[in-house]
């Protein structure tokens, strides 16, 4: 299996997981970003009936990541729900699964642009921003203050490399020494290439940790197309 990678921000180590979650051993905290729960059912009103299993799939992945790391804290980095109506559409069995997940760790819901007011009946606390030691946690990346480090989501990063004449594109973590942006965790969320405009100016010399089918692979910026 893969070597486990380590991403260090302001002296704090983070371990990128194959599921797209990020584990902070020093704080016993598991971070996930952009689940977009109930994205599948969000177009029902328009007569678009996407398979309504994205919530279940995302939650099962999250449950597995929790069982593998057994963290004290679980932190959602915003856009956990695709829209404000998501709570009303979620299936009863999926709801039970979500409650079991939040019951297993101290849960923090950071708000995002899709879920400025996440449901209040799911356990945990809701806040705009928080921090793990010197590392700020928020939904959207911000201009950093001197000495500040930050983990955010929102942009759904993906990276592509060329190998043997093939182009391979995967979701990824992207980070330099100060900033880390997490991949979207949700099973229906798309991804945006880290070479696109939205990422401009955010990173110095960065690396990406690409999420393959069986392992996470690290590449320097020079190899990312």
């Amino acid at each position, binding site marked *: 299996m893969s070597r486990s990678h380590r991403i260090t921000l302001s002296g704090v180590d983070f371990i990128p997981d194959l599921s797209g979650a990020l584990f902070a051993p020093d704080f016993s905290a598991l971070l996930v970003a952009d689940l977009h729960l109930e994205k599948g059912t969000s177009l029902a009103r328009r007569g678009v*009936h996407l*398979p*309504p299993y994205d919530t279940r*799939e995302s939650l099962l992945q999250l449950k597995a990541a929790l069982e593998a790391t057994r963290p004290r804290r679980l932190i959602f980095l915003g856009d956990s729900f695709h829209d404000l109506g998501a709570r009303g559409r979620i299936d009863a069995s999926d709801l039970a699964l979500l409650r079991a997940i939040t019951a297993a760790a101290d849960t923090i819901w950071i708000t995002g642009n899709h879920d400025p007011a996440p449901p209040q009946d799911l356990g945990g606390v809701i806040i705009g921003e928080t921090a793990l030691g010197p590392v700020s946690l928020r939904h959207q990346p911000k201009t950093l203050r001197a000495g500040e480090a930050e983990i955010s989501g929102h942009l759904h990063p993906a990276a592509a490399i060329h*190998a043997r004449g093939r182009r*391979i594109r995967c979701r990824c973590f992207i980070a330099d020494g100060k900033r880390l942006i997490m991949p979207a965790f949700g*099973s229906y969320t798309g991804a945006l290439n880290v070479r696109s405009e939205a990422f401009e100016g955010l990173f110095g010399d960065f690396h990406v940790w690409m999420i*393959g089918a069986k392992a996470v692979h690290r590449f320097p910026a020079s*190899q990312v197309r």
Partner: protein
Amino acid sequence: MSLPQRFLDWFSARGWAPRAHQLRVLDHAEARESVLLISPTGGGKTLAGFLPSLAEIAERGPGQGIHTLYVSPLKALAIDIARNLEAPIAEMKLPVTVETRTGDTPHSRRQRQRRNPPDILITTPEQVSLLVADPHAAHLLKGLRTVILDELHSMVTSKRGVLLSLALTRVQSHAPGAIRIGLSATVADPDALRAWLVPAGAKPAPLVLGTPGAKPDIRILSSVERVPWSGHSSLYAIPEVYGEIKRAKMTLVFVNTRSQAETVFQALWEANDDNLPIALHHGSLDVAQRRRVEAAMGQGKLRAVVCTSTLELGIDWGDVDLVVHVGAPKGSSRLLQRIGRSNHRLDLPSQALLVPSNRFEVLECTAALQAAEANAQDTEYPAAMKLDVLAQHILGRACAGPFHPDALFAEVASAWTYRKLTRAEFDQAVDYVATGGYALRAYERHAKLKPLASGTLRLAHPRLAMAYRLNMGTIVEDEMLKVRLAHAKRRPGKRVVAGGRVLGEVEEWFVSQLTIGQTFVFAGEVLRFEGLDEFGALATRSGDREPMVPSYQGGKFPLSTYLASRVRQMLADPAAWKRLPPQVRGWLSLQRLRSAVPQAGQMLVETFPRADKHYMVCYPFEGRLAHQTLGMLLTRRLERAGMQPLGFVASEYALAVWMVRDLPLAVSSGRISLGRLFDEDMMGDDLEAWMAESALMKRTFRNAAIIAGLIERRQAGKEKTARQMTVNTDLIYDVLRTHDPGHLLLRAAWDDAAEGLIDAHRLGAMLRRVKGQILHKALDAVSPLSVPILLDIGRESVYGEGHDALLAEAANALIDEAMRLV
């Protein structure tokens, strides 16, 4: 039916007489029988189809609603037919109105056609579906007497034909007395078409045969140049092809793919010392550009057009007197169809020249020539029973008004294509249309079909009918990006490009492979990729002669089973080699000496060491798709047997797999049996496991999801919002497969893949064929027959490695590099 006097007068005024097959079609129409007319192009086929209608309308008088619905696969053909009908109607002074209705027909004209319908409506398959989905369909079609289906052979093999067959069941319900006249080119199995034309279980439509045309005159280019071992560009033959163009008045140069068209066109242009007007025509070029080429052809201003199947069907654009086919034709019927584009006169033989682009293609061209001389057909069997198409039809039915499922099931099952549909499958499709058909009932409140007390179902909202009209149809294009010619401006420190005119469209996946600065061939030029903007891809003219990125993607059409067996027979019979050029004969003789030439029933498997790897090459001749699937399955097996396979490459004719371990040793020591290795049982679990993960499967799933209406097509002008709203179908596929493996769309995608991209049916048949017939040659070195496929290794994608292996390799290579620097 005897023709009315004014028709007879019209014929004789032209020095013509009605042909026998035209009169026989007339007889069947008078007896109110559907009929199939098979006749070569130029035999008055279309007129044969229309004569009964013209005669009847002349008799009954005009203005009594639509009498005849004429359906053509091509919009351009429909318009051309309407124009061609004008002459006899005007000359005989017939009181008959003819109008067309295609995707381009403006709304106002459709409205008028509804209020004041023409006697003859000329249209396309999609328009028939739209017509029957209209709430006024019953009124519009109640007087319908005849449906004419032109180029039926080309429509029935695809989902378009399947959708048309369903629309026709609705037409039949509105106009029970209407008959169908099918017009077709020669096909391999006329009985299937005869059954297709009539309701399931009814007596097949009688067959009328037209007079056969003169036998075509086909040659194979016997080049003075060396015929390449492999590759597809045929560049070696360009000077000779150019010579042929110079001698002919007007030449059509057919190729199999867009990129071949680009390459050949570019090479001809460079050889064009006489500045002959030579043009390019393929489906990715801008429509306006294509229309200009067609118009110039019609006016006789061109000497040659390099084209793909875009010019294969339909209209005559000018006086073509030579057809050159560059690359192997892949099927006998396809070759005959393309050759038929020259000399549209029955009494003169069509002239054709085949240009094989490599040695195996010499064999294939020879087999195709012999097949064409024998007029042997290898057209595909009509497609049947597509669940995604059924779902689309059900929604269309609901758009026309409330329906009872029992009645619709009976109607659908009356189509030959759906004769094997079970009620359970039908109900599953209805459930899919209503609520998505998921085990998790998430959409009951937002169902598209709502039950009424009577047990009938009605459309939940008129908005859904609008969405149906925008999304219906079965042709799913690859996602395309516009390519614009950009102008580079030098600014201090930065290269700035600004977009200019549109050159055409290219597949999005192709652009996604390019990095800025790479060159590729498009629209007859070598272009430099400059990046993307919100409108698409930007490119500048490059001074390069050779593009950096080859875009050959293999043939779109696999080698037909029939031609494949002819090639195998030819190979097995040294007496038949006499017809082959000396170079190719020498190549085969050497193969016989060094290895073996298999008997027609046998499959040759060669093993040999090369560099530090062990190769296995087999020659099934079943087409690239089936070989790719075989390669995937064999590498899985070899992996399990501990042979450590490293990769494989597949061509139309052969498959090469290479591995770390010594395969012949494992065979001679009895550890591996080749018979077991190629056993048919690989079509079970291994195939399922691989298909489920395959990118090809995701592509077929996307097609099925669009046809079945799960996701909407990207609409022009709405592209940005659509992109934001839609979920990538790959993600949907993965989630659906995990949580609802029995879902209708997965089955639809699976069925398509097994027939199409994976070609599992053909592979299965081949494995059964070679059972106990494997001829193994353990060699010390490469055999002559294996050279072409080995040459492909550097050129084609190598399969067999997962993305993770490649990612790990790339990451490790970097580590190695870093270590060396230390």
